[in-house]
């Protein structure tokens, strides 16, 4: 069976959002299909390092984990790296994110020498360099998995050049590029000059959970949820504008903003400036069971993203029985039909749809029931099958 050297993130995910969730889902499903995965991930100090452990993730399914002492974490930026380093200064870690990425990539050479595998799979830009080093040492093919690009994160403004360069280098020198949606595939083709034959789409999915809570719409609960990083890419400012518009029609609606991010202070200010501070709750960063509770409490989940390569959260919301309103600029709309879709910049339409979902019970019910059914068919198993097929083809070519 195929042996994969995978460069990924937190396993299982606790703090790493969509990226960690996707890595976990993919790895688990691949392992269930008999693929031997050696999962390499950065590990902050304080935890055991460079231990190889077999982690049990399912019935008869194990994954070998290898940790590398590093300050890297999912969604890091130069700024957040500097902040993280302050509390953990040590001569091992690179003084900047860029240098830490390089150092991690050096460690990868060691791993490539010691381990045995047929193919390398690198998730997200911070591991591409590591993947390339592993490829050089082992002469095995490399697949890079594009979960997001610098363009999504920045909206095209003030792109960090070194990040873009690394992304492009990884995509160009890899044997295969995987994107989480056609949306991202088009972006990669257009802005990174990668030929379309080299790019394959493997949509993300959601963990199947058999106990989906019944979310009831009563006269009292009219709660709209935003859950995600409070950053430009996620459109929290459009969410607030739409909230203001809806509240003009129905002052009874409540909004919850769950998450942290660089735009947080600005959004809090904006909410106050709009005079809706008593209608918007900032719940902070939610973890584990609290996330499910938040979805269940809400009547509607909104993903107002400006540029979302996929967007697993709407699927998680539906898993919890709550219908969703999703920006058209997201990859998830390629696999999810039973949802409300909106252009993120069309604040009036966003407000119109929020209002409708909360005021027309038949709409709410149909969105919920059909969405819940649809989500059952969006499985990591399907993604893993596609991936396995890609692995086999790439390996056969070399």
């Amino acid at each position: 069976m195929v042996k994969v050297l995978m460069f990924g993130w937190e396993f299982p995910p606790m703090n790493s959002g969509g990226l960690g969730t996707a890595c976990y889902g993919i790895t688990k499903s691949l392992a269930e299909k008999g693929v031997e995965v050696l999962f390499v991930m950065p590990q902050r100090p304080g935890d055991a390092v460079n231990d190889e452990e077999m982690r049990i993730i399912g019935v008869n399914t194990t994954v070998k984990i290898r940790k590398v002492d590093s300050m890297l974490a999912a969604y890091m930026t130069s700024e957040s790296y500097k902040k993280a380093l302050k509390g953990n200064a040590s001569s091992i870690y690179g003084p900047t994110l860029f240098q830490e990425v390089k150092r991690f990539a050096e460690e990868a050479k060691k791993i490539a020498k010691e381990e045995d595998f047929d193919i390398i799979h690198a998730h997200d830009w911070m591991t591409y360099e590591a993947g390339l080093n592993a490829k050089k040492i082992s002469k095995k093919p490399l697949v890079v998995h594009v979960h997001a690009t610098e363009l999504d994160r920045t909206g095209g403004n003030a792109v960090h050049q070194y990040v873009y360069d690394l992304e492009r280098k990884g995509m160009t020198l890899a044997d295969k590029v995987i994107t989480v949606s056609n949306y991202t595939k088009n972006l990669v083709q257009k802005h990174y000059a990668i030929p379309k034959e080299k790019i394959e789409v493997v949509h993300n999915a959601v963990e199947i959970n058999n106990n989906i809570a019944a979310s009831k719409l009563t006269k009292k609960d009219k709660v709209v949820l935003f859950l995600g990083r409070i950053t430009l890419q996620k459109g929290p400012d459009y969410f607030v504008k739409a909230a203001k518009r809806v509240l003009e029609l129905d002052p009874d609606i409540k909004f919850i903003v769950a998450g942290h991010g660089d735009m947080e202070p600005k959004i809090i200010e904006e909410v106050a400036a709009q005079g809706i501070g008593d209608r918007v709750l900032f719940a902070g960063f939610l973890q584990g069971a609290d996330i499910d509770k938040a979805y269940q409490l809400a009547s509607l989940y909104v993903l107002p993203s400006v540029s979302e390569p996929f967007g697993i959260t709407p699927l998680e919301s539906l898993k919890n029985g709550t219908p969703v309103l999703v920006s058209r600029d997201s990859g998830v709309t390629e696999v999810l039909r039973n949802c409300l879709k909106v252009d993120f910049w069309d604040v009036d339409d966003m407000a119109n749809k929020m209002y409708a979902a909360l005021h027309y019970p038949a709409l709410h019910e149909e969105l919920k029931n059909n969405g819940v059914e649809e989500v059952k068919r969006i499985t990591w198993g399907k993604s893993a099958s596609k991936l396995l097929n890609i692995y086999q083809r790439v390996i056969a070519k070399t």
Partner: protein
Amino acid sequence: MPAISFYFQVHQPFRLRKYSVFDIGMNSDYFDHKKNEEVANKVASKCYLPTNSLMLDLIRKFDGKFKIAYSISGTALEQFEMYNPRVLESFQELAKTGCVEMLDETYYHSLAFLYSKDEFKEQVQMHTKKIKELFGQKPQVFRNTELVYNNELAKFVENMGYKAVLAEGAEHVLGWKSPNFVYKPAGTKNIKLLLKNYKLADDVAFRFSSSNWEGYPLTADKYAAWLAANQGQTINLFMDYETFGEHQWADTGIFNFLENLPKEALKYPQLEFKTPSEVADSNQPAGELDIHNVISWADIERDLSAWTGNKMQQSAIQEVYSMEKEIKSRKDPVLLEAWRKLQTSDHFYYMCTKWFADGDVHKYFNPYDSPYDSYIAFMNVMSDLRKRMNLAPKRFSLFEKIKNFIRR
């Protein structure tokens, strides 16, 4: 010796704008005039004009031996008057030939029969009037919206004076019986029931250009041979007129097929073309047909699920018909007309969430991105209509005024 009886459905709804909650109370213009005009003209150029022209030629060429029937909805007629009078003229030319029978339906192509018999009757009478006015014919044969049918409908339209009514020859009600016979609907006296031969009709309407269909490619001579091999009194080929040029594009050869069909069919001495009226007049019922539950010609199920299957559709229909008494009491023709345009079955069709095999047919002319969007627009419009209705004063007849005064 079966007759071939063609009937073509011609319909266009007044499609709604993307009416938002912010339009409520601000904007009483519900319809997407631009879209409706675009569609009317597109279908006119791809279907109505070329097909009417071809039909006219065929009628003239075969000198009375080629006959057809149409049912044209009131909403379609209005849109021809507004956007494309050439189309109306071409239908009028066809009507003048004496070989084209016009049928009746509800003016607004609605499901009113299921929800309000009074409203249904009014809409049918409006349609009769319009047909008389435009084509100089008084229809004798009735077909309900989307061939929605049951015993009760047959009885009702019999009482209105129709000699025949059309329905889908659905397998689940026919059983072993053949659609090639005229039947007497259970509970009626004289009215005749004509059933669509769905296998042969759908061969043209749906399968014509399917390259993986065993009958492909369908040529006129092949089809004529199939028709000739049929037993019975009549082969009822009921279909959407847009089959010609819209659902089946010109490059599939559909016009060629149509052009050659009369010639090929008339080669067989046992075949002849008849209008639905002629089929009714020249045949006695071969038996009784008891259809208690409502059937239609839609989707695989041939039932009402395309318009009433989900909760959005049910609540939307309920909303519309629950306003009847109130809105009629205003005696405001503008409100009444708006309310009636909102009864057109297409609005509910757009809200259908059956996404599988039949789902694609639903999407084809859906002006919205999703059934959810169509429901939102519809319900917002209903909200506005209700608001306007509530603002409009009730107008009582003199008798009602006296009654209310006495009761005070």
